[in-house]
């Protein structure tokens, strides 16, 4: 009860911080522009002639999250360490976990908001045809979970350094690995060597686990995959933070 109150206080502060700087608005605009561009220009939304968002819309999310999510997550801890406010935060009567979860939730909610603002795409597709809105909702859930997984990774790379740029680059590399592990050209290459290896590698990929959501299949294994990345990364964050202080 009390710990939720602490988490809420931190989440509120973090969200406030996003919107008091131009970062939030710039991010949302870029996110929406990219979504529109990929959906309508590259994804060929109109040419497909299908009332669905799976292909043209969600397919691109793993790719532009690759750059956008680390941009949101890089400041989580690096900024606290640079300015020294981490010393304030971690000497408050809260646990490190509450701080980590509170900060993570704030960014995740922020990404959720950006994602929700793509609603005109849903309206468009409903106006043009009669899509299965359950499938679309499922895609949104999957997309948000995937963003959470990337974000948790950014959280721990951010805890590793005082420099936001370093944090950004490292988390992009890790996320890229998670994408490429299931990227068809890579899996085809690995299949040439050994089929089980290809499957094993692909099972670590966000692409593999995101596919189901796009098709409207809410598989508990996929949900658990993303949630376990989140939990594991946040746990790593706490280990890194403790390591710094232990010296």
């Amino acid at each position, binding site marked *: 009860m*009390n710990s939720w*109150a*602490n988490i809420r*206080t*931190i989440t509120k*502060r973090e969200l*406030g*911080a996003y919107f*008091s*700087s131009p970062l939030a608005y710039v991010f949302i605009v870029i996110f929406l522009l990219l979504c529109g561009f990929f959906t309508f220009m590259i994804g060929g939304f109109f040419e497909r002639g299908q009332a669905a968002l799976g292909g043209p819309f969600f397919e691109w999310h793993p790719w532009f999250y690759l750059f956008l999510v680390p941009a949101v997550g890089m400041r989580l801890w690096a900024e606290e360490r640079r*300015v*020294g*406010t981490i*010393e*304030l935060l*971690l*000497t*408050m*009567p*809260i*646990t490190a976990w509450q701080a980590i979860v509170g900060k993570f939730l704030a960014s995740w909610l922020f990404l959720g908001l950006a994602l929700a603002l793509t609603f005109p795409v849903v309206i468009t597709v409903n106006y043009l045809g009669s899509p299965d809105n359950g499938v679309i909702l499922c895609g949104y859930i999957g997309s948000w979970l995937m963003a959470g997984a990337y974000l948790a990774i950014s959280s721990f790379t951010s805890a590793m350094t005082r420099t936001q740029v370093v944090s950004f680059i490292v988390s992009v590399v890790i996320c890229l690995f998670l994408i490429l592990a299931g990227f068809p050209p890579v899996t085809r290459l690995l299949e040439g060597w050994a089929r089980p290896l290809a499957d094993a590698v692909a099972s670590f990929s966000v692409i593999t686990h995101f596919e189901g959501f796009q098709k409207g299949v809410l598989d508990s294994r996929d949900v658990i995959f993303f949630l376990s990345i989140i939990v594991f990364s946040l746990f790593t964050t706490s280990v890194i933070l403790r390591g710094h*202080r*232990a*010296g």
Partner: protein
Amino acid sequence: MIRVQNLAKIFGAKHAVDGVSFTVERGEVLGFLGPNGAGKSTTMRMITGFIPPSAGTVTVGGFDIVEHPIEARRLIGYLPENAPAYTDMTVHGFLNFAAEIRGLRGDARKQAVRRVVETCFLEPVLHQSVETLSKGYRHRTCFAQSIIHDPDVLVLDEPTDGLDPNQKHEVRQLIRRMGEKKAIIFSTHILEEVDAVCSRAIIIDRGRIVANGTPAELRQKSEWAGAVTARVGGVQNGVVKQKLSQLAMAGKVVVLEENTTGVLVRVFPKQNGGDLAPTIASLSQAEKWTLAELHTEEGRLDEVFRDITMPDTAQRGGK
């Protein structure tokens, strides 16, 4: 309130803090002195639970900072070095956040914020972003944060650093006033602050406590303590020095100034010698000297500090 026992912190091969023990009770203001890198900040960070100790224990209000960190931290207000604050918030927002995370809600929170805004004179910048504040205001904002929950224990790392003389004065007054009912530890480089504020001072050097006592006790350690300066006339200059040196209580006698009207001498007492001044006064009366000036030195903190923290290079005694 604060009990520190054999506290140690090792960074790699460096013993940043090496076996520090002391206690601070309610109503005490403990000054924490030492050269840069002596381990002051590290000790304070361990007391507030920011970094775990390599060895030893800290208890605050009976709660071990490692075993019961949340309960112990509730009692502590902390002003870290350089007074960090969230730059992307307004002063008001920042203080509200600090109050809320300290568990103050509703009216209690509003009252607490109003109180510290008044105490720290933050009214003019209340709705300004922390980023745009001058150093003095930022410092006071962070200071306000540390007292927002009216804590029993205050740990202040260089609370007057970067403030102008007026602000320094205000902060010292504030610390002294709060010290009447709280246990306060503060670190400083400024020795005059020790006299102005502390009931007790600790000098720490290379991770160890090298002196611990009231400011007066520390001054006693100075060679200057108890030395008497006298201006004597109406007598041949050489005779004064000779006569004074013959006194049983006197140690070294130094002539500071000599001219046709008289001589200015400083007499250092022997170890554990009593009060020199009356003896010198009666001597000069007996010898029929004219005594133009006579006063006892109090001992100087800066000299004690230098002697203790740089034993190899310190200049000893008077000139």
